[in-house]
């Protein structure tokens, strides 16, 4: 049988630290109306993704039904229910990138990493995402890896770029 969250927190100081951090953020935001989305953003930053435990915990702390939390998390693209890789590669397929060859870049990334959008490579090195415009249209096509944006991409350039991320 699965242990309850409290017991697991007592056993795992690392996990406890993460939940404490989330707790502190919720305390700070508790007085704000409708802070659920902001709290989920913070939770994803802390945990890297949003497992059931976190969803249940937030529901309890914010006093909203679990179904509401689940509904919100699954509605928005930004929230992930599965663990992500060490690096997130987001290929932009907004219009400007698309008309300047973004899909050839995307195809090459898929081929190189062997995964599709929304998937994570076996070795957890990369998670591949498709995004619809990051607002750097002047330099289309654009690829974002973690927090860095790279412009004027080509299929060949993107492969070189990926190799820089271990």
């Amino acid at each position, binding site marked *: 049988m699965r242990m309850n969250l409290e017991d697991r927190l007592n056993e795992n100081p690392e996990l406890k630290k993460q939940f404490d951090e989330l707790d502190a953020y919720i305390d700070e935001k508790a007085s704000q109306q409708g802070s659920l989305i902001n709290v989920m953003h913070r939770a994803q930053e802390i945990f890297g993704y949003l497992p059931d435990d976190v969803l249940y915990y937030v529901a309890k702390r914010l006093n909203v039904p679990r179904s509401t939390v689940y*509904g919100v998390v699954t509605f*928005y693209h930004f929230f992930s229910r599965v663990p992500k890789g060490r690096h997130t590669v987001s290929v932009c397929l907004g*219009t400007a990138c*698309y*008309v300047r060859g973004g899909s050839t870049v995307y195809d090459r990334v898929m081929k190189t990493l062997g995964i599709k959008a929304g998937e994570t490579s076996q070795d957890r090195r990369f998670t591949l995402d498709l995004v619809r415009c*990051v*607002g*750097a249209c*002047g330099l*289309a096509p654009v690829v974002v890896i973690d927090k860095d944006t790279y412009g004027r991409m080509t299929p060949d350039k993107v492969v070189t770029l990926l190799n820089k991320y271990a």
Partner: protein
Amino acid sequence: MIRNQLLICAGGACITSGEKSVKDALVEELARNGIQDEVQIIETGCMGACDLGPIVVVYPEGTFYQKVNVQNAGLIVSEHLVKGRTVPELLYHGPTSEKKAQTSEEIPFYTRQVKRVLRNCGVIDPLSIEEYIARDGYFGLGKALEMGPDEIIKTVQDSGLRGRGGAGFPTGIKWKATKDATGSPKYVVCNGDEGDPGAFMDRSVLEGDPHSVIEAMVIAGFAVGAATGYVYVRAEYPLAIERLDYALKKAREYGFLGKNILNSGFDFDIEIRIGAGAFVCGEETALLRSIEGKRGIPSLKPPFPAQAGLWGKPTLINNVETYANIAPILINGADWFRSVGTSKSPGTKVFALVGKVQNTGLVEVPMGTTLRELVFDIGGGIRDGKKFKGAQTGGPSGGVITADYLDMPIDFDTVKEIGTIMGSGGLVILDEDNCMVDVAKFYLEFIVDESCGKCTPCREGTRQMYRIMERICDGKGRGGDVEKLKSLGKVIQLTSLCGLGQTAPNPVLSTIRFFEDEYRAHIEDKKCPAHVCKHLLTYSINPDKCVGCTACARQCPVQAIGGQVKKVHVIDQATCIKCGACYEVCRFDAILKE
């Protein structure tokens, strides 16, 4: 003593092009020459000419250096600042002009612009509230507090300002309706969920001049009687969120936000709410639900947000660019605002010029400017000498403006007449290499992805349209498909619940209207005239160019290419799956794509 200022563009595109390392190189070079105390480095918001980045401008001369990199950044210091001579290799040289441009005033991209919304972008340090104030910042607020709510609203109404988010609804009417609505508290909301792919003006304003939005929201709060404001920003814009957050703190410190603003007794504060990646949240009722922490599902209007918005209370909601217009209107008056633009769409409009145009970037021009001026005079024409085919406006809700309408003055109403919308101002320029059927399919796929699922016409209807588009592009189009798309599109327009669904068929209907022959070519001749749709292409090998290197045969995933080493290869058309792998791998341009 500061003798020179170096303005470095720290807009999104220039950061991507390496602005940070250029700045570091400049700092290092200044120190090496011992003049770090004489020269001030200022990182500004977006200067607009994204294609020329990273950009460094040296003041007081205003010398405009473009495409600066780590290697040559030092020259600006060692040559310009130390020896007093410009660095010719970093100056802009237009394709048609005889000599190089010294300042931005000599570059056609800039000379035709009228910067009102972008008045401070690229001119001031967005992190410095002092610089904003020095450019008449918060002067509009001071004036507004003296004018009182009725006069503020009258001025906004008289100015004729229309919502820059897309629909062009008169801003003053919204303000008045919110003020007159019963119920309290009231709220002021800024829609910064710039979801239209290809548009980034709101991002640039929030990053480059965040105080202009804050000031306008305080004015709006005072005018409609609200004490709380929310700025809803896309999660895709972390830098905008960071700079806005900092600006809010500074505004509070200086007494422009919080309790008893400028000793007027008026209290107002602003919170940031971050989106989470849902295009539908750009629709105002969906956005309000998202601020409430719920799924972004739109609701039927009326009631309008002005009557029942956030938590059911009267709410004023305007877009970033609309707010950025407010303070100058109050300072200079309604007549000043109307002095440019057209009579029904006064003022300026910021366009994001992207796609196949030479000079990509952000431009602000008077309403009524023609597409020809935008694409050819400011944009420098089409890349690689190709032919202009059309400009897609309004993102997935809009349509295409074709070459026939290059001389039509663009404002809210003229674009509507030809079946598209102004939208937020994204102008995606398409050339002869773009397939209009493919572009329309691209937008539909986007909509299918982003439809919230609440109403059937949008959820199911767009999916059906997409299936038809898909089979057309796959070479399986049937007679009558165009008619089916038209009638389905009409139903979706008329019966969808919110703006997303009502406009979703626009890209398809608009491209059918102007490029029906391309649709027919796909369906009847099974040909893609622009050579884009993969399944309608045939790959063959030019025997004159093939050297028999076997690269293509090795790359082919289905062994469709035969031939011996150093002999001409041949593609078996029956086996070929048209993946294009051979085309990419061939180093001798021997693969023909038709």
